[in-house]
């Protein structure tokens, strides 16, 4: 089905505003339905095809303004959309360490449950301790990625600009750069690097792989956004 001019304009503006794919699809579908109903009504009223299409476009309203209204309403409907500075600037600073430790502990505990035994057994049997080390390592990466993905998801649901995801994921990346979680037999440490070289010579920091995880999340999110833009800008669908 070809897209009438107002629908093309609507799609273009939604793409410019960075509308999430699912939302964009629904807006386009409903507006196209409405436009078709208006056109049919015009034809039933005795108008020519051209006149009916022109009248339908007029009744529908300015497509670009319509796209903006949709996105504004979407933002107003969530706390994250109404307060992006707090939500993606301040909340990640305060909540990321708490969430990170929480998710990491869940991962550690899960690795214990997989072995159906307690911490003590793991610590005392080298082979089992190795399994736990893998669980802890994976849990660390998973926790960092999951938190970054949550922030990005919240920004997308509120139809916010991609820059807010970048801000929140950037903060996650910074935290990941300076957090450490070390597991040794009969002890584990969880904390933040405080040494001079970690803060002022980040090139010496060993946490680069962890810090890349939120950036990878951003990269995937960006690719998905590009896919949405491509769908919105294609001439017909």
């Amino acid at each position: 089905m070809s897209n009438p001019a107002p629908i093309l304009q609507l799609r273009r503006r939604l793409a410019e505003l960075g509308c999430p794919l699912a939302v964009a699809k629904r807006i386009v579908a409903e507006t196209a339905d409405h436009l078709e109903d208006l056109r049919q009504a015009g034809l039933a009223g005795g108008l020519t095809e051209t006149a009916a299409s022109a009248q339908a476009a007029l009744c529908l309203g300015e497509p670009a303004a319509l796209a903006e209204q949709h996105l504004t309403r979407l933002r107003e409907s969530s706390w994250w959309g109404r307060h992006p500075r707090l939500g993606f600037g301040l909340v990640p600073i305060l909540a990321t360490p708490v969430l990170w430790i929480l998710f990491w502990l869940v991962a550690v505990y899960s690795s214990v449950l997989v072995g159906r035994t307690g911490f003590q057994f793991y610590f005392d049997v080298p082979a089992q301790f190795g399994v736990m080390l893998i669980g802890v390592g994976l849990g660390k990466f998973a926790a960092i990625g999951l938190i970054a993905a949550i922030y990005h998801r919240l920004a997308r649901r509120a139809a916010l600009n991609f820059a807010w995801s970048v801000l929140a994921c950037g903060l996650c990346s910074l935290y990941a750069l300076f957090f450490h979680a070390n597991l040794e037999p009969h002890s584990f440490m969880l904390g933040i690097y405080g040494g001079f070289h970690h803060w002022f010579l980040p090139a010496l920091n060993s946490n680069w792989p962890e810090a890349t995880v939120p950036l990878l999340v951003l990269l995937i999110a960006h690719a998905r956004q590009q896919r949405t833009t491509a769908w919105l800008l294609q001439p017909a669908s």
Partner: protein
Amino acid sequence: MKKTNPSFLNGVPELLVLRLLARRTMYGYEIVKEIQVQTKDALTFGEGCIYPYLHYLEAEKFVRSERRQIEGRSRHYYDLTARGQKRLEALTSEWARVTDAVALVMGGQHV
């Protein structure tokens, strides 16, 4: 301190939509046409404006929607929820309060 009414005055389209959906399930085009018929075309607006309102009402869980295929056309149909019913009652009583207050100011004049 007594609350002012900015959200109520902005909420007239919300009141109309909820009122219509309280009667039956409708899709966007039907809602717009019903408003035009019932207000004798007194309220004119770009018809596409109805959808941001409907999506907002859905996000607030005042209405729910479902894609249905009826007579060869697939459309989003909207239904009022129990939460929407309560919201409608609140908006209706607020509307009555405001119109009574305006009538008092206008005195004997026909509003």
